[in-house]
């Protein structure tokens, strides 16, 4: 089995348009959640979100590209370019033939669906743009990354709701670890902050109207975000031979299914995924210094997740740090694990633990060190990143400092 390292990272989200600005914001505990700016927002009962602002797609992409790129694809391409540029890899020859793209998204081109349904149902038009299908399809972003960067190996899109990115990165990791691919571009993106995308979430009655406060006793729900996170996963010897800067090592992963409820999380499923990731990585639980929590800010997730952490880690649960950066960038749904992996990289590489902001009142059911409100300096060797999706599908990644 090969070792797998991360040699490039890219992002765009409510906290920043690239990795350095995002990490600075996480370090400073900046809140990227604000009043939504979108069409018909007055008809929404939930009017806040972690929206990407000031992203001028028109300047980045030409007219032909714009007719093919939904916002989730635009985000993905921006993040992929940053990651691949940082890795220093150029995909050609054998490397190109074997390297691919595995990305996660829950909804794909949601605003393309929304705009075109509006056009035919509300405006009564009988004709839509010829590229509606290639623009909205869930694999559009992965396809455009493959075309843009000449990635000709295994490429596809994974969709497991809020765990999509973690499932995608687990797949990419497996491919590099097995020797199937020398490098994989992986992560995920989401862009659901349009009228229909927010209206659908409102229906569930689990959204907060004011803030995302994970683990805080007065939490009252989740807040949507948008954006992308993309990474270059590379075989260790391949990276070392070319003198690449290694951001961290991906040491293992596990996936589990609750097989119980379509929306309610399960402590057992979450525990099995965390314990499984440690076992796969050959990591002792006492080595884990930081957990990037799924931490949605809902009543159900946060207490279940904390109970699962207590189960898996025993007395060590009180020594490790666990934070939810969703409090800052919102819940990026299918893209969330990818953006949250950045907090793990910052913890391992820079020794800075991102905080859980908006934390106001301790909850006895979430009695862990949630790094409330302010980032903390700490030297850690191992971090894990949790994602627990609707449908009971869980994926956890384990990372080691380089």
């Amino acid at each position, binding site marked *: 089995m090969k070792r797998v390292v991360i040699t490039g990272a890219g992002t765009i989200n409510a906290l920043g348009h690239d990795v350095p600005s995002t990490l600075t914001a996480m370090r400073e505990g900046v809140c990227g959640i604000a009043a939504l700016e979108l069409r018909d927002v007055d008809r929404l*009962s939930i009017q806040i979100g972690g929206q990407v602002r000031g992203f001028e797609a028109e300047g980045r992409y030409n007219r032909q590209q714009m007719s093919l790129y939904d916002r989730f694809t635009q985000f993905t391409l921006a993040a992929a370019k940053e990651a691949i540029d940082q890795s220093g890899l150029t995909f050609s020859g054998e490397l190109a033939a074997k390297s691919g793209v595995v990305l996660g998204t829950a909804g794909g081109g949601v605003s393309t669906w929304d705009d075109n349904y509006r056009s035919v149902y509300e405006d009564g038009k009988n004709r839509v743009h010829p590229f509606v299908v290639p623009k909205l399809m869930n694999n559009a972003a992965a396809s455009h990354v493959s075309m843009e960067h000449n990635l000709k190996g295994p490429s596809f899109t994974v969709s497991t709701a809020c765990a999509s990115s973690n499932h995608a990165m687990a797949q990419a990791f497996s491919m590099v670890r097995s020797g199937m691919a020398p490098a994989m571009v992986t992560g995920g993106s989401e862009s659901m902050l349009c009228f229909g995308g927010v209206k659908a979430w409102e*229906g*569930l*009655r*689990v959204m*907060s109207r004011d803030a995302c406060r994970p683990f805080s006793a007065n*939490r*009252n*729900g989740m807040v949507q975000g948008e954006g992308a996170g993309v990474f270059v996963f590379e075989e260790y010897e391949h990276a070392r031979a070319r003198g690449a800067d290694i951001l961290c090592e991906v040491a293992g992963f596990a996936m589990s299914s609750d097989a119980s409820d*379509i*929306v*309610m999380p399960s402590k057992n499923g979450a525990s099995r995924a965390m314990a499984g990731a440690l076992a796969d990585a050959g990591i002792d639980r006492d080595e884990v210094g930081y957990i990037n929590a799924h931490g949605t800010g*809902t*009543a*159900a997730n946060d207490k279940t997740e904390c109970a699962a952490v207590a189960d898996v880690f025993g007395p060590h649960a009180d020594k490790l740090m666990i934070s939810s950066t969703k409090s800052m960038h919102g819940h990026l749904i299918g893209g969330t694990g990818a953006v949250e992996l950045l907090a793990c990289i910052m913890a391992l590489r820079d020794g800075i633990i991102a905080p859980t902001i908006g934390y106001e009142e301790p909850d006895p059911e979430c009695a862990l060190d949630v790094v409330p409100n302010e980032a903390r300096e700490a030297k850690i060797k191992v971090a894990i990143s949790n994602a627990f999706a609707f449908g009971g599908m869980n994926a956890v990644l384990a990372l080691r400092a380089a």
Partner: protein
Amino acid sequence: MSTKDKVIAIIAEQAVLEPSDVTMNSTLEDLGIDSLGLVESIFSIEEAFDISVPFNANDPKASDFDISTVASIVAGIERLQAEQS
């Protein structure tokens, strides 16, 4: 149909019971309605009465809308109808 009968019909359908099995003192829990069933019941009530019910599934008890029994739901609907008409 009275407000009471409409509410009983909605709750009975959600609980997969006959309306005669649902009384004003029944609690949703007694009737076997879980959190998903509760969210669906609230939606049906909003649609049936053309009102907007303040309800957050993260903390159902925090809402002004008392869902503890069928009687409290009927009273809540009548209050919201008066406020929102």
